[in-house]
């Protein structure tokens, strides 16, 4: 099924996203970036980062900020203003519309925008592995009919059916799911690379209506960078009497440093600026080394930050809304990562803004959400639950063995084969557990049942398959089946997910708090199980070997078995491990002796020599087992899945 993509066609950068598995996903460009610079060379059809790199070389052929001309008349005040600073040629075209001229060819802004959209389409197709023919494109809330129409045409030229044009602030609100939260009145604060927009939205009949919009079309991240550059250059000049801004190469490096410092200061309070050999002074090379603190940066850009508040006030006034009536604030644009901006906005509105979604991607994400609604995908999104806690069964030694781990998306099923712990054990008890703790006794028992009628056999031989199946509504079915007889028992547990959040949190916290001791307890049981298993193997080997081993060795092994048996019930972990190792070493001698004799029936000893090779699973021996051994006898089993 063809996907509908959501596109944020921006002034400085563009971005795209798509609904996948019910959640919006930002598509990266082929260059591996989450945004594509809205820069085009219409002659060579180069778009994005590559086009941006030739901006200096071909200022007349490289078009940027084309969005500023979309659907505008040449005579428009804003166009007349932009002509002064945009390096490419702008002229009056058909019906007096603003067009651009490149290499003697006249192009409409729609055609130029279409090239950006073509690149977006191609990159999205590469990512999705299929054709993309439909899209939702966003525009600023203040775009008039002609500008919206032009945007739609751009889409069509690019081979995209534009299913809907939506407002950027609305998209941002959708990205946060504010419509579902029933947030009635929203302010969207959008400070991008070159423009600032503030929009006041009101939710009515499930649709956001733009109550007012304001802003500054020539205020953005670039101005902040320039302020930092000026500060750094002036400081440098004070010390070295050289204006770095007059040396193009130094300026280039200064610009990079300024941008890097600005970004760094969003997360740390100090940034080091270190550009050795930045320029040549009268007495040799000069280095730019400076420390910029966040406090200083905030002082440098304070004027710019304050400049955004006036339009905000005006927008509220136009919407006839008081600051206190705003339910939610949404932050858009890379500049809103600056802590100072968040602080000023929070202070103005008296509440924390929404800023968890990447501010460079939030509009594209919202467009994708809208695309998902139009494609029928969002309406039908299956909200799949996850298991809040791990589900498992109790195995040998009171260990909790997980079958379905925490946070698994349900429905899900898992099965594993276990075996008996004692010779001639005819029944096993399945104790279904829930929780993160290592030992069964610390977890919650959801239910237990007994599978009986297992034909008598040596321990480890019977295969009991335990299957967990949890359906979409959280109902857990546990089934145990003896593979030899096909006999089965099962239990249905309905309360497996019905825990309150507080309970889940408590259980998770407990598990974290006890992680270390639980691990120790588990490993202690494992050591015991291993020792027990080795005793069993050793006794079997001695019996199988009969008189093929020397009497001394037999006595030695028997002695080691007894020593291990003695420490097993109450010995420390280390004691048991040492004795296990000793027995294991002696056991290997049996193998050696037997192979020296070149007896053909040496399998028993060979197996015993390798007592810790295969992965093992053990079940808890049933208490009613007829075997004489203690209930904690280890056995081998095999993992099926």
């Amino acid at each position, binding site marked *: 099924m063809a996907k509908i993509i959501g596109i944020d066609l921006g002034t400085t950068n563009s971005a795209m996203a798509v609904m996948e598995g019910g959640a919006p996903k930002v598509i990266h460009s082929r260059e591996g970036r989450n945004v594509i610079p809205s820069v085009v060379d219409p002659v060579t059809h180069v778009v994005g980062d*590559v086009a941006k*790199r*030739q901006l200096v*070389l071909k200022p007349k052929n490289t078009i940027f900020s084309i969005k500023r001309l979309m659907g505008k008349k040449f005579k428009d005040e804003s166009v007349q203003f932009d002509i002064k600073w945009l390096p490419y040629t702008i002229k009056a075209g058909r019906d007096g519309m603003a067009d651009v001229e490149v290499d003697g060819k006249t192009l409409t802004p729609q055609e130029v925008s279409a090239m950006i959209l073509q690149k977006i389409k191609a990159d999205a197709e590469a990512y*999705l592995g299929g054709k993309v023919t439909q899209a939702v494109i966003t525009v600023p809330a203040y775009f008039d009919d002609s500008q919206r129409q032009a945007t739609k045409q751009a889409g069509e030229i690019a081979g995209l059916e534009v299913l809907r044009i939506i407002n950027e602030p609305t998209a941002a609100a959708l990205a946060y799911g504010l419509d579902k939260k029933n947030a009635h009145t929203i302010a969207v604060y959008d400070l991008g690379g070159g423009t600032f927009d503030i929009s006041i939205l009101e939710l009515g009949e499930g649709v956001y209506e733009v109550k007012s919009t304001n802003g500054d079309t020539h205020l953005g991240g670039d101005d902040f960078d320039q302020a930092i550059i000026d500060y750094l250059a002036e400081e440098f000049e004070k010390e070295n009497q050289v204006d770095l801004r007059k040396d193009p190469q130094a300026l280039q490096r200064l610009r990079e440093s300024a941008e890097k410092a600005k970004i760094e200061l969003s997360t740390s309070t100090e940034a080091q600026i270190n550009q050795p*050999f930045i320029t040549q002074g009268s007495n040799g090379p000069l280095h730019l080394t400076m420390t910029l603190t966040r406090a200083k940066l905030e002082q440098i850009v304070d004027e710019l930050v304050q400049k955004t508040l006036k339009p905000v006030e005006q927008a509220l006034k136009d919407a006839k809304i008081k600051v206190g009536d705003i339910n939610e604030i949404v932050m858009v644009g890379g500049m809103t990562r600056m802590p100072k901006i968040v602080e000023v906005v929070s202070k103005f509105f008296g509440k924390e803004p929404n800023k968890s979604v990447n501010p460079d991607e939030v509009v594209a994400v919202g467009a994708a959400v809208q695309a998902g609604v139009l494609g029928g995908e969002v309406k039908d999104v299956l909200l799949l639950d996850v298991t809040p806690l791990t589900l498992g069964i109790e195995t040998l030694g009171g260990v909790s063995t997980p079958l379905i781990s925490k946070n698994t998306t349900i429905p899900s099923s898992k099965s594993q084969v276990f075996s008996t712990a004692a010779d001639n054990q005819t029944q096993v008890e399945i104790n279904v557990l829930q929780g993160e703790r290592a030992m069964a006794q610390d977890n919650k028992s959801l239910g237990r049942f007994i599978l009986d009628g297992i034909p008598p056999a040596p321990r480890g031989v019977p295969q009991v398959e335990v299957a967990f199946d949890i359906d979409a509504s959280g109902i857990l079915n546990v089934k145990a089946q003896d593979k030899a007889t096909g006999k089965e028992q099962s239990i249905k547990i309905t309360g497996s997910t019905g825990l309150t959040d507080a309970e889940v949190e408590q259980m998770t916290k407990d598990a974290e708090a006890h992680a270390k001791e639980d691990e120790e307890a588990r490993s202690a049981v494992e050591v015991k199980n291993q020792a027990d298993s080795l005793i069993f193997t050793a006794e079997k080997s001695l019996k199988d070997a009969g008189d093929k081993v020397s009497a001394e060795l037999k006595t030695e092994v028997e002695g080691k078995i007894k020593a291990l048996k003695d420490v097993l019930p109450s010995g420390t972990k280390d004691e048991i491990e040492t004795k296990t190792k000793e027995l294991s070493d002696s056991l290997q001698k049996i193998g050696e002796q037997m192979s020296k004799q070149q007896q053909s029936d040496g399998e028993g000893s060979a197996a015993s020599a390798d007592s810790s090779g295969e992965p093992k699973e053990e079940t808890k021996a049933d208490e009613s087992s007829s075997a004489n051994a203690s209930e904690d006898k280890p056995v081998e089993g095999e993992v099926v899945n």
Partner: protein
Amino acid sequence: MKKHDKQIENQEIEELTNQLKRAVADYQNLEKRTTEQKREWILAANQGLIAKLLTVLDSLFLAQKHIQDDGLNLSIQKFLDILKEESVERIEVEDKEFDPNSMECVSVQAGEENKVLEEVRPGFIMNNRVLRPSQVIVGGKLTN
């Protein structure tokens, strides 16, 4: 009435089938992409670190320009050798035509049109991907 119910039922089946197909398709695509991404990650694992280290190399190059020292030259050579071992190669720009795919023009000076006149900062390619474009000065006709 019955017929109507049947119709609704069919519609529902169709909707659910579509939904299932979509979910399975999403899953399969995700799997394919995860495999692809894993391959890419392995290739790109060092990319971020190397890109950062390149700024140190930049300083060394600049220092060399000013102080011309044999020891420094050797150090730079060592740096470049290690980069080569990690399949990071310097982008050749000398006497080349300007190519925005691997170069960034930082300034234009009078000279042969579209030809690279000077490398300001070297660029590097890693596993056929531009790690960082070369910053170059390009020749052109100077207006005003």
